[in-house]
């Protein structure tokens, strides 16, 4: 690290940023299509299959539709906050990709290129910090819309996100204790032999439930419960701003899937296939699981949501940390 970063390093970093941005935005758009088709199959329907072969061009058509729609701002809305909120919801998800390692360092022309934008030694905390910021998009979007439905959705989202963030943080503590580091690279390296899910099935279950709640998806989709709140916090949004909220949700699905892969499934480690393929396969499996759960489970009630978080998940997470500590102390 001692040398000054030269122009080539800078170019490589910019190229990595560009590639990641393009890839994840495309993936998020296609995940929308995947979700619609999979949900349709689960419900014994066909889903969108008219635009292009098997409906593969549907994301493009959706994009054109969203871009050409009018950008409405309701009367009495708090104009600036209303316009800024969708960006606040999507940006933290994109920023989190900066610390995720996609594969082992690549050797190209005698130069080591890590497949990760930056290896922060507080990587886990960086992710927790960003996920705690993502609350503002939902809350301010709901508040600024000057609509009762949106406000209720915003308040629900706020309460849900801050509660489940706690469980998420606590479920990551055993991972950090096992890896003895906050850096995502070290966490992946510590799972070279066996993934952490084998040592920490409870922590994995807790993390998975809390990331379901973090991306506001069924059974935790109370902030946007269509049947009672119209569309919750984004009820008043139209056009590209609605699209940003929408894509933000899918970006969150991908990024949280990637993090679950990194923390519990050994990241890019895997036999036979190249590392990047393993990584993508694991993340896709998580995305499929998210969609599958949405097609299968009903929505919780607001009080059940809070009871589950504070009276079940939090004590279990604390007990799990304690047990992990004991185990690490008595282990020879």
């Amino acid at each position, binding site marked *: 690290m001692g040398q000054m970063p030269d122009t080539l390093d800078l170019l490589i970093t910019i190229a990595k940023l560009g590639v990641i941005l393009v890839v994840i935005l495309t993936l998020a758009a296609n995940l929308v299509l995947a979700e619609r088709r999979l949900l349709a199959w689960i419900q014994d329907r066909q889903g969108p299959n008219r635009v292009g072969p098997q409906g593969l061009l549907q994301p493009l058509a959706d994009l054109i539709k969203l871009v050409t729609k009018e950008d409405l701002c309701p009367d009495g809305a*708090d104009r600036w*906050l209303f316009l800024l909120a969708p960006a606040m919801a999507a940006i933290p998800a994109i920023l989190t990709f900066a610390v995720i390692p996609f594969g082992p360092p690549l050797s190209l022309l005698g130069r080591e290129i890590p497949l990760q934008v930056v290896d*922060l*030694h*507080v990587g886990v*905390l*960086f992710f*927790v*910090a*960003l996920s*705690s*910021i993502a*609350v*503002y998009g939902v*809350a*301010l979007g*709901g*508040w600024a819309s000057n609509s009762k439905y949106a*406000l209720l959705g*915003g*308040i629900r989202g*706020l*309460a849900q996100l*801050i509660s489940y*963030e706690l469980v998420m943080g606590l479920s990551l503590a055993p991972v950090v204790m096992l890896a003895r580091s*906050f850096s995502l690279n070290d966490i992946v390296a510590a799972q070279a032999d066996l993934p952490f899910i084998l040592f920490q099935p409870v922590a994995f279950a807790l993390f998975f439930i809390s990331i379901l709640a973090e991306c506001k998806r069924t059974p935790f989709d109370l902030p946007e419960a269509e049947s009672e709140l119209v569309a919750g916090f984004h009820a008043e949004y139209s056009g590209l701003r609605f699209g940003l909220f929408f894509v933000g949700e899918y970006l969150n699905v991908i990024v949280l899937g990637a993090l679950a892969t990194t923390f519990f499934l050994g990241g890019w480690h895997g036999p036979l296939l190249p590392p990047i393929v393993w990584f993508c396969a694991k993340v896709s499996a998580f995305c499929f699981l998210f969609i599958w759960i949405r097609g299968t489970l009903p929505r919780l009630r607001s009080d059940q949501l809070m009871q589950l978080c504070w009276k079940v998940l939090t004590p279990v997470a604390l007990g799990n940390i304690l047990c992990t500590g004991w185990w690490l102390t008595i282990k020879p």
Partner: protein
Amino acid sequence: MTVLFYLLALVATVATFLCITERHPVHAVVYLVTSFFSLAVIFYLLGAPLVAAFEVIIYAGAIMVLFLFSIMMIRPEVTEIDLHPGFRDWWPALLLGGILLAALGYTIFSQPLRQGTVSPGEIREFARLLFQKYGVAVEIVSLQLLFALVGAHYLGGRRR
């Protein structure tokens, strides 16, 4: 680096100033969060990424969210307040601010500036200090928080 520091310092100062003068509570919260963010980046520039992360997680991500939550729940009216408070109203603020400023000035002029160092073992050292050297103090503070929690629950429960 220096340019970035002054830019962030400017953002933090302006945001904090606007937070105080802003009449709308939600806008004030947003300004304060902006200020915390620039402070976090400044901490990072000074070689303390751990403090930067805590600044965002605890202050911007937890405390301000709770502020926002209560503001959204009780929706206070934007009240017209007297913009020219008399001396009677602001002498406590003046006194406390004066003490703070004097302490700050004393610290700056009596001790030579120490350069912050970046070390990968930062978290380990931090944890040792927090839970071994000052462990008893941390436990006492946690117990205080527990008392406050029980007290709040008692007060809130009695109303029903």
